């Protein structure tokens, strides 16, 4: 068995054996979807005349996928370093790309399951999401999104030495970003300057591109722009993560 396959297997077992992580990854974002979906059931956004669910479903999905990517790799890196497991890996001939590659594949798998689950629920009658024919494009968009947010998670996991620090940094980043990027409420409800300002947030690009693909709120140009933005964030945070990565907490 290759190091990459073994690490992926261990990561998969750790993931499915932890009920708290499963809840946080799958059920928690679903609560947002259900609550917002039921509150605004059958209502349209005045500014655009589109149903709320066409905003909320892609928004909550993007946020849930991004959140899981950030938290899972940040927690894992912090924990592996704290427990000296990274030191153990450092003392084996396994290369760092195999280690990060296994986390990447796990994050992609989680993201795909989340996407199928969230869209599946949103399609149910009480919510009434209507998928556009461009929906398969959401898949590559999600891959770009997971990649970008994974690099952010690597940076957080390298900076934070405790679970509390991971949660604090990641939440401070992800919760405001969710509101400012239109995950929980339509961007059309935000003032113009905020709509423009939110262009500096990676989740905005993920939201826009997923919305364009799933519910047709936007066109092919929005999907390409979203993916391009996510690539830029991946390069920036990838470079930062190379600088901040540490094998050990010891000086």
């Amino acid at each position, binding site marked *: *068995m290759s190091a990459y396959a073994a690490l992926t297997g261990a990561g998969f077992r*750790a993931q499915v054996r932890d009920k708290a992580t499963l809840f946080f990854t799958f059920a928690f974002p679903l609560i947002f979807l259900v609550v917002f979906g039921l509150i605004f059931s059958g209502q349209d956004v005045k500014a655009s005349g589109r149903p709320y669910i066409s905003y909320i479903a892609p928004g909550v999905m993007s946020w849930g996928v991004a959140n899981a990517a950030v938290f899972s790799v940040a927690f894992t890196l912090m924990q592996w370093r704290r427990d*000296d497991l990274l030191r153990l890996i450092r003392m084996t001939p396994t290369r760092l790309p195999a280690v990060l590659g296994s986390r990447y594949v796990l994050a992609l798998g989680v993201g795909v399951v989340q996407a199928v689950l969230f869209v599946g629920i949103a399609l149910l009658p009480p919510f009434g999401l209507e998928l556009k024919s461009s929906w398969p494009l959401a898949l590559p968009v999600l891959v770009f999104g997971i990649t970008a947010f994974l690099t952010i998670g690597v940076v957080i996991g390298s900076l934070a030495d405790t679970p509390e620090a991971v949660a604090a940094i990641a939440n401070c980043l992800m919760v405001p970003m969710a509101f400012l990027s239109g995950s929980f409420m339509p961007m059309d409800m935000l003032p113009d300057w905020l709509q423009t300002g939110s262009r500096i947030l990676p989740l905005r690009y993920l939201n826009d591109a997923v919305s364009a693909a799933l519910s047709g709120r936007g066109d092919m140009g929005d999907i390409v722009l979203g993916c391009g933005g996510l690539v830029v964030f991946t390069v920036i945070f990838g470079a930062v993560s190379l600088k901040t990565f540490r094998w050990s907490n010891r000086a």
Partner: protein
Amino acid sequence: MTDATAVPAERHEATEQTTIVIEEIRKRYGDRDAVAGVSLQVRRGEFFGLLGPNGAGKTTLVEIMEGLREADSGKVTVLGQQPWPRNVALLPRMGVQTQSSAFFVRQTAREHLTTVAALFGAGHDAADSALADVGLTGQRDVMVENLSGGQRQRLAIASALVHGPELIFLDEPTAALDPQARRDLWEVLRGLKRQGRTIVYTTHHLDEAEALCDRVAILVDGRIAALDSPHNLVSSAGVPTRLMIPEGRLSPEDALAIEGVDSAELQGGSLVLETRVSGQVLTAVDKLAGLNDVQTRTATLEDVYLELTGSLAGTGQDGDNDTEQQA
């Protein structure tokens, strides 16, 4: 006493019989010398102990050998190669015991070891044989979080053995074990030595170092204060052997008349003789008073250690750590 100046100069060229050669290694943290010019060799198949008080530089020195740290100056050769920077050709030939927390979470003992084995590219049955080596076969399906302290310690050792390395670094391997588990682990460690593996081992248990190690280096303030076999260190330490004869069997005056007796005084119901030639004095005592119930206390590695490390802090040893034997 063996001191730094008395450490015999070693030849520093690597041979087939040498696993680790370090020459004039120095490592500084801020204005403190963690390792201040250490040279030593670890021979192939040797059980080599690294002793010293906390902060003496043991961990830094071991991490330099393992390739986890770069020395400021000096030369390190491990199995004929440079361990720094990270040398992936060398790593599979070394095994490093980690902290007993370094386990993949929510895995069984066997799953953890299988993963570690795969990281080394070792075969699938490597995990089972490593579990058997450390006596954890019965716990193979127990989650690592549910193992006892001693079992975790053994799993950490198994993680260092799973790929069959030639050189093994062990850090306080018996720290969390009860006396029986400790003795059991000694057998595991002796078994590794019998298989021809080289072991570098740090510990605070001096009885253990004396029982297991072929040679020990005592590190004080980043320097080697002594390096030799435990037997030679104890012999050359010049700590006298004490003979305890039940009171009344022999007078202090008669005892002092025996050739080789340095002192004789009554203590706690015994006449205590101090001598550096215990064999000769025991023969004489046998003739004068018989050897029934005569006890001898010889110096141990701990006496040597305490004298070396304590003298620097101005606190000499008090002789309470002798081993006791019936003559």
